[in-house]
């Protein structure tokens, strides 16, 4: 069940008090609001630019926060929470690509095709020079570059977020950076 399936009517008919949610979630509403204000836009930007689809980013943002709230997260460390949120979002985006009728799995795509999703590529190409460069990268490369150069995540954090070994991040990031730099120079 996706959180976007919840209708306004259902929300209005909900008799659940805030204490019910606080028993289910690992943070209270006030803490959530503060965390959301800090992380929602960066997360949306990440999802929007990696997927090239703002509507998909909207859905994935909501679903990511729902799963984040339901997770039994013990740590109060804000950086850890943010990394965990981005990890959920990255997995959801990958699941979406796997399920999508027009796209192929990231793994097979990264082995063969230069682009995984034609529609994503088209959307990105219509944008700036950077958009065109991004569109020619593999989704995994886009993820790595964004997390490293926009979010400032360490290799260890990126490894946790994208589900790869920390040791392989450096090389993958280097290759992605070189590819992106070449594309930017030739645009």
């Amino acid at each position, binding site marked *: 069940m996706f959180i976007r399936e919840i209708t306004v009517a259902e*929300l209005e008919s909900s008799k659940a008090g805030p204490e019910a949610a606080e028993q289910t979630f690992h943070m209270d509403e006030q803490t959530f609001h503060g965390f959301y204000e800090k992380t929602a836009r960066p997360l949306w930007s990440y999802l929007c630019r990696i997927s090239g689809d703002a509507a998909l980013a909207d859905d994935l943002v909501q679903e990511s926060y729902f799963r984040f709230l*339901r997770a039994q997260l013990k740590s109060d460390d804000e950086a850890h929470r943010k990394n965990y949120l981005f990890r959920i979002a990255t997995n959801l985006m990958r699941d979406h690509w796997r399920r999508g009728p027009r796209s192929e799995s990231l793994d097979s795509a990264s082995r063969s095709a230069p682009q995984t999703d034609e529609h994503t590529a088209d959307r990105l190409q219509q944008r700036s020079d950077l958009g065109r460069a991004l569109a020619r990268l593999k989704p995994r490369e886009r993820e790595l570059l964004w997390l490293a150069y926009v979010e400032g995540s360490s290799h260890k954090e990126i490894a946790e977020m994208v589900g790869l070994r920390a040791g392989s991040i450096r090389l993958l990031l*280097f290759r992605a950076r070189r590819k992106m730099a070449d594309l930017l120079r030739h645009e």
Partner: protein
Amino acid sequence: MIGTGGAANREGTMSESPKLQHCEREQQVLDALLSGRWAGPWGEEIREHAAACAACSEVVLVAQALQRESTVAAEEAGEPGAGPPPAGLVWWKAQRAALRAAEEQAAQPITLVARVAQAFGVLALAGTALWQWPRISAWLGSAHGVERLHPAASTGTEWIERLSQAFASPATGFLLAASAGALLTLMAFAAYVVWREE
């Protein structure tokens, strides 16, 4: 291939590997860009280094392009009707979704029991019908014969007699009891499901 080796930098050192050339100061360069220190007077030394270092200049090229894109995306996210929904809406949706998931989880055993009961009811009926098929067949055949010969018999006292005989037979009694039991079980679960939905 990035970099031309020796022209690299004064303080940093370039890896000699042709496959993976990098500079030890790449992270410093990136930190300066991310923190905003790059553009200020504190960033002068690192800017000079990056200008002379192929690896670091590549970091600058890519990081600045991505950060520009991030700024554009953040502006888009702030436009009315675009970007992430308000925190309150996401909280309430999450709350409702959690309650719905909890309800579904709680109802799982009941749904399972209801399905098992339905399956047992159907199996009991089918099994009894198979077990008593010769008797049922003979009973239906004789009833059909009576109706054909004496149409009025279907509403007469003969049927009452036949019914009382049927109840008197233990096998047919069991058949009827099993059917009634299955029916009652189904009705009880149906009533429960309706009550729960309401």
